[in-house]
Structure formats: C-alpha cells, structure tokens
C-alpha cells in the first residue's frame, strides 16, 4: 500500500516532466505566421497563385505588390472564373457561341486598377478587425469592407465563443449607378444584397513586405458577374 502511495505521485511527476518532448515531433514544424521572403516571392512558391504571378508579371506590378501593406491574393480559380465569365459575356454580345477567349486575350493594362483593388497601404491583420469591421480604401481608391464573422460550421455550437473567419466584401449600389457608402457607419445601413462577400480561405501570412490573405477559390476576380458592379 505504502509503496503504491509513493509510486503514484512519482509516476505522475515523471509523466508531466518527460512526456511530449520536442524530439517526438517528426517532420514539419510549429506554426509560424512569418515567411522570410517578399510577398511576390511567396506567391511564386505556391502553385495556387501561378496565374496570379503571370498576371502580375504581365502588368509589371511586382514592386506595387511588394510595396502594399496588405494584399488579398486571388487564386488561379478566381482568375479562371473571371475569364470564363468574360468569355460568356463576349459570346452573348457578339452572338458567337464559339468565340475563343483565354487568359492571354485579357487586356492587362486596363486590369491594373482591378488588381490594385485588392491592395491596401496599411497592414491589416486579424488584430485590427472586429465583427463590425473596417472600411479602408484600396490602392485604386475604392473602399472594401473587411470584417470578422463568427461561424458554427464544423463546430456546431460546442464553443462558447465561436471561431471567426475574415471576410473581404465589396459594397455595391442597390441599383446601377446608385450611391455606395464611404465610411463604416454607412456600411451598417446597407441592404444585405449590396454586400458581395468573399471568405478568406487563408489569412495572416506575414511576408517581409506585408500581410497576405488569400480569397476563397470560388471568388470571381473583379466580382465580374455582379449586375450592379
């Protein structure tokens, strides 16, 4: 009995002190938000951004990407969505259902501002954000709503505080040519139909030049499909 009484605390202490040493981590490493390269170089390392990098090259915007404090990167899928939507529009306009329109057919010079609409001067990380959100100006002068939204997806309601996703939202007028709000208080008043929201599928990558967030694959570059856009 006595030995048991002594033995159990010793065992406990042993478990506490000797378990889970770092040696047991095989492969991979602990999470680190920082990557030791510029935003542009980081995009180049990840194949999800192949098309985006090609686009940046064609536009000669490498320096602008690297000088932006925050960049919401679109993946290859978003650009494909854009090309397909544009092709569909042209086919309807020209009444030619076999019209060929590919990535190379895009007019890159005119799309420069569209890409700038995904860049911000300041560094925007999760710490600056709230459910209400912020409404900063992009490098092309438009406004974007960036906010946190809590979710019960995958967790149902097992947490007292739900996880929160970052959303990137363009506020469009209710009718074509109508007014759009210019500050966050105005955004609070709009009809939900005016908010074109995109989930950020990866957030808070800290490069040596700024912050990088990645927009969901099902986003369409420039929100091309929206009627009032």
């Amino acid at each position, binding site marked *: 009995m006595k030995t048991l009484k002594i033995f159990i605390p010793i065992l406990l202490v042993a478990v506490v002190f000797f378990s889970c040493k770092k040696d047991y981590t095989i492969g991979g490493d602990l999470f680190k938000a920082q990557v030791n390269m510029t935003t542009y170089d980081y995009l180049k390392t990840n194949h999800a951004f192949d098309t985006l990098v090609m686009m940046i090259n064609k536009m000669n915007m490498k320096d602008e990407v690297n000088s932006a404090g925050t960049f919401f990167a679109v993946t290859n899928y978003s650009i494909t969505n854009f090309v397909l939507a544009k092709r569909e529009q042209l086919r309807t306009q020209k009444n030619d259902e076999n019209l060929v329109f590919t990535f190379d057919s895009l007019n890159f010079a005119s799309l420069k501002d569209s890409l700038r609409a995904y860049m911000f001067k300041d560094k925007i990380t999760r710490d600056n954000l709230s459910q209400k959100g912020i409404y900063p100006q992009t490098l092309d002068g438009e406004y974007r709503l960036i906010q946190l939204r809590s*979710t019960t997806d995958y967790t149902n309601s097992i947490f007292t505080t739900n996880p929160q996703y970052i959303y990137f939202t363009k506020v469009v007028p209710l009718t074509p040519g109508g007014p759009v709000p210019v500050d966050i208080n105005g955004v609070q008043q709009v009809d939900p139909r005016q908010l074109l*929201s995109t*989930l950020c599928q990866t957030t808070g990558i800290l490069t040596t030049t700024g912050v990088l967030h990645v927009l969901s694959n099902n*986003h*369409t570059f420039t929100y091309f*499909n*929206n009627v009032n856009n």
Partner: protein
Amino acid sequence: MKKNIIRYTAGLLMITGLISVSSCKKILDLQPHNSTFTNAYFTNGTDANTAIAGAYSLLRSVMLNNYSFHVFGDATTSEFSINSGLDDANYNISNGEFTGLNVGPGIWNWLNYYQLLQQINLIINKVPAIPIEKFSNHDDKNQIIGEAYYLRAFTYFYMTRVWGDVPLKTQPDLDVSQAVNIPRTPAADVLKQCLADLKIAESNLAFGYADESQRAVRANKGSAFALEAHIKAWTHDYAGCEQATAQVINNGQYQLVTDTSQFSKIFIGKSVEGIFEININYQQSEGVALNYYGYAPTIAFPFVAQKSNLEWPVSTLYVNTLFKDTTDLRYKKYFFQAQSTSGQTIKYSNITYADGSAKNDPRLSNNIIIFRLADIMLLRAEALNQLGRDGEALVLLNTIRSRAGIASYTGAGNALARTILEERLRELFYEGQSFYDLVRTKQIGNPTSSFISDYSHINDTRVNQGGYLWPIDPSMFKDDFVLKQTPYWQGKL
C-alpha cells in the same frame, strides 16, 4: 484488503440477486398499453387521431431523411452547382456521376417508407371498426379514414416516381412472425391502386378547413384531387388530369397569394394557396435544428447568422436561362445574389434562433410545400394544352405570369407547352417538382430544347431504359429473396 473485497463482492451479488428476483413482476404481466399492434389500441377517437398524427410524423421523417425530397426532385436537375467539397454525395448526383457506390445507400433504401405504410395500413384496417360514438367529433372518423387513404396513395405515388415498381402492400402486418416478402408490383398497378384509394379518400374528405390550424398540413378533398391530377398527368391521362384540376380550382376554396409582399409566407406554410404541406414549425417545437440533424444547403449568412458554408449554390447558368426577364418578381424573391458563385435560394429561409441573440442554434421553420394552387393551375394549363384547348391554358398561364410581374404570353401548340413547362420550372424552383416535370413532359436530354440540354447526364436513351428511376439499396436483398433490382441498374452497381 482482501477480506474487504470479498465482502463487497458478496454484498453486491446479494443486491443484484434481490433486485432481479423482486423487480419487474407487475410490468411484465401487463398488456402493452400503447402498442399499435394489438387490439388494446384503436378503441376510441383519440387513438385514431393520434395514429393519423403518427402517420404524418412518419411521412415528415421520410421526406427529411437524407434531404431526399429535394435530392430526388431538385438535385437531379441542374438547379444547383453543388459544392463537391462540402456535399460530395449530392454533387455526384447533380453531376450525373451517380454510380451507386459514391452515394450513401440511405437515400435509395425504402425501409422507412414501409414503416409509414404499415402505420397507414393499420389505420385503414382498424379505424373503420371503431364505433362512431367513440369519436368526440363524429366527422373525425370519415376524415381520418379519408386521410389514411390519401396518405397511402401519396406515398405509393411518391415511391413509384422514384423507383418505378415497388412492392404493393395494402394490409398491415398484425403479427410480425406472419410477415412475408412480396415482389415488386408493376408501377402501372401501383398507380391503379393509388387512384382507387383516392376515390375512397375523396368520398370521405370534405373541401376547406373547419380548423384553420390544420390548413394544408392535413389532407382534405382538395389535396386528394390535387394528387389525383398529378397521378393522371404522370400517366399522361390528361383528360382525367383536367377534370381533377377543375375540382381543385373551382371547389377547393384556394386562392393565389396576390400581395407580393406576402410571397415568402407561401413557403412558411398554411397560406391560402397551400394544398398539401409537411408541417415544419418552430413554434410547435417542430423546427429543423440546423446544427444537429437538419440540413439547409441552399442558405448561409446573412440568412443563417453563423453559417458560412453554402453546400448548394444556385446554378447561375440555369437561373439565367430560366429567368431571362430579371424584372420577374420571383427572381428577387427566390434568390440572393444569384449572379455570384455563392448564390442562395431563399424560398425556405425562415430561421428562428432557439438561443435568442447569441444566434448559435438556428431552427428552420418552413413547411415542405408538396402541392399548391399555382402548381395545380400550371398543371391544368399543361393538360388543356395537351387536349388542344390552348385558349383556356393561356388564361391560367398568364394568371401566374401576371402575379410574377412578367409579360403575358400569346402562343399555341408546342411553343405553349414549352412555355408552360418553363413557367413550372420557374414558379416551382426547388419545390421537389422539377425533375418529375422534365421526365413527365419527356424533355430531359432533348437536344432541341436549349436549356434542357444541360441535363446531358440523363438523356433520352437513358430515360427510355428507365434510367430516371433510382436503384434500390443492395442491403435490402439480404433478407428478401423475391426482390429484384431496378432493370436499368442491373449489372451497373
């Protein structure tokens, strides 16, 4: 130490012995109080009322099971671009890549339908024998018998549209040991039985509702005629369909909801337009709890505050082909941001949060709409068109069109038939009807009709071979040697 253990064990054994000897005596001797399988039940009106309520409840669970109502009727058409990452099984179905193994067998298993049919058959078997004095409201007896016949006809019609030939069982199994396996009855005979049941239902039921709370969620004479119209249209007996729809429209006491601001109320349920609905009402604690077993794949934020996954975004292509006229009120009322890649279908988006302002526990409170007046009016237009009475068909079609705020149509013959079908697809979007409409009008995979050619995964050849029917779950063959697989699927699973 050792002694103690022995003592405890002995004590424990004695207690266990004592309990097992002294307990449970009385309970075991009693007759089961609430079993529907014995003559102890079905003695008075209350029993009959509870039994029919039980049948409705079983029907509700059949419809909600695996979200099958919308999978059968809507996922199979091109209404949605289902997200494969979030709902792979239904993505396979919507994409025509259904091979059997990549979709769980739950959805093609009909066991729970036969639980429902057992309940209905029991009511049909037992309730007529209850003396009428035992009902507190004497009208209840006929009403309940009529509803049971209606439900049996509805269930078999629903099943036969999904599987074709199904085992036809019109007697309850009163003794489980006597239950026998029966082979699949040809669809035509099943439908004949449905029509025979409906004749009885129609003679027992009355038009209108004395109790407003039962509107549409309990069957009446109008529901029975609506079902008869659908069965006759399915068998291309358009003359019969025309007569049944006339009963619904002229005598059913239904009205179109013309105040467009009240449009969403149609889908909450019990509107003046509703003919038959499945009750889903949070206030009666019958909402669908989305965080638990419930599923609402076509809505997300902002309609469900904390839901960011949209499993079934609407297909923009399909919507744009159907709603060429975007001033159509339905375009605005049915969809949210339909032009984006995450367009939501918001017909059924009446959410209440069980935990109030925390909004963590959403409950959906929209009835499943099975039949409504607009549906029957368009079905009548289809029948009239087939019978060569285009003038009358146009009046009905244009009533629906003018309610939606779109221009009247003036056409005839096949062009009119096509417009009526498109109007049905527009009006009844996501109401579990589209697939059957396309099969009935033989428009699936028809290469000459532009938007329907999008259903390339189900083409004419496949429809002619019976490929619009679902296979049955192979696990059902285990205990049933007389069952045979649906012909199209033999050798394909």
